[in-house]
């Protein structure tokens, strides 16, 4: 049954994932963490970090990782988990494949009409909202700890968040370098 739901979920994500990799994150996060509880909030954040540092599109990376982890967490063996990751990745790619072939075949001439363009125009600001929601939903105890649970970790986490935001947005530090800096900071400040 889990294979069926993995397929359906990632097919939906592929079909409705507008706005590139980051735009898709909101959907992936919502389905895999909030709805199905296949991944914890921190596992999801780890996948995003790993996706940043390894080659390939973030959508494929997280589908593969999530398919594997979901089946593994459900108590299946390793070969079944590999099958799970193949299912999720295939399901994510399938809508793109079908849609792009259909567009190439018959809808190319409609892509620049006013109606289609006004649909895309409405989607653009919506994707901004989706990303904002993904950011807010990731501000969890898993990722930041809490002042009562571990005040030291909470304060350092907030500082690392602010520093990374400033570093990437204002000083334009490469995101991969920023992840490496915070990895070093984590090792020095959180090792116990």
């Amino acid at each position, binding site marked *: 049954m889990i294979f069926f739901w993995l397929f359906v979920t990632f097919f939906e994500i592929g079909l409705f994932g*507008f706005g590139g990799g980051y735009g898709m994150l909101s959907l992936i996060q919502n389905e895999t963490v909030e709805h199905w509880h296949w991944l914890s909030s921190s596992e999801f954040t780890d996948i995003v970090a790993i996706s940043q540092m390894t080659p390939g599109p973030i959508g494929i990376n997280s589908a593969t990782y999530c398919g594997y982890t979901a089946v593994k967490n459900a108590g299946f063996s390793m070969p079944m988990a590999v099958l799970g990751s193949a299912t999720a990745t295939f399901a*994510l790619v399938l809508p793109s*494949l079908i849609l792009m*072939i259909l567009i190439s075949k018959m809808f190319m001439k409609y892509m620049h009409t006013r109606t289609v363009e006004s649909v895309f125009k409405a989607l653009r600001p919506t994707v*901004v909202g*989706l990303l904002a929601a993904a*950011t807010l939903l990731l501000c969890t105890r898993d*990722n930041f700890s809490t002042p009562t649970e571990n005040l030291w970790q909470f304060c350092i986490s907030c500082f690392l968040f602010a520093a990374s935001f400033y570093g990437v947005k204002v000083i334009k530090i490469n995101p991969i370098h920023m*992840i490496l800096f915070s990895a070093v900071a*984590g090792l020095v400040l959180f090792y116990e």
Partner: protein
Amino acid sequence: MNIYWESFKTFFKIGIFTLGGGYAMIPLIEEEVVNKKQWVSKDEMLDLIAIAQSCPGVFAINIATFIGYRLKKERGAIATTIGTALPSFMIILLIAMFFHQFEDNRIVAAIFKGIRPAVVALIAVPTFNLGKRAQLNKWTIWIPIASALLIWLLGVSPIWIIIAAGIGGYIYGRVVV
């Protein structure tokens, strides 16, 4: 050489060498597909990029499917799509298989505690960048605010928000413009 194999190989290479997601792929795809192999012209490529960006799904896969289809119809599209997805699939599968064993390691745990808040910031940054590019005014700024609040506070699925926005845009295009 067989064209299926060659297009598969080209996109496999593109899949391996792109760090940092879809848009980082554009220069590499242009170099391979437009300059070296000359499968599509430069103008066609710009058009394909624009359409692939507006459509749902993984950007790199969309582009790969388009070019594969141009070359050899459905079978060509399947060859390029598998080529693009395969490197990420294999790399992440290896990491997923072995990562569990290091999760409880104290060094790895400390490193990831530091990385997590940074990653949340990395997702916050494109929110603002995309907002700027969408050229929000005092009317359209409410679209992202309302969508974010519906998802964050009321737990509405982003899929419904996208469907609603699409229908809204369609009606707006039909009635108002």
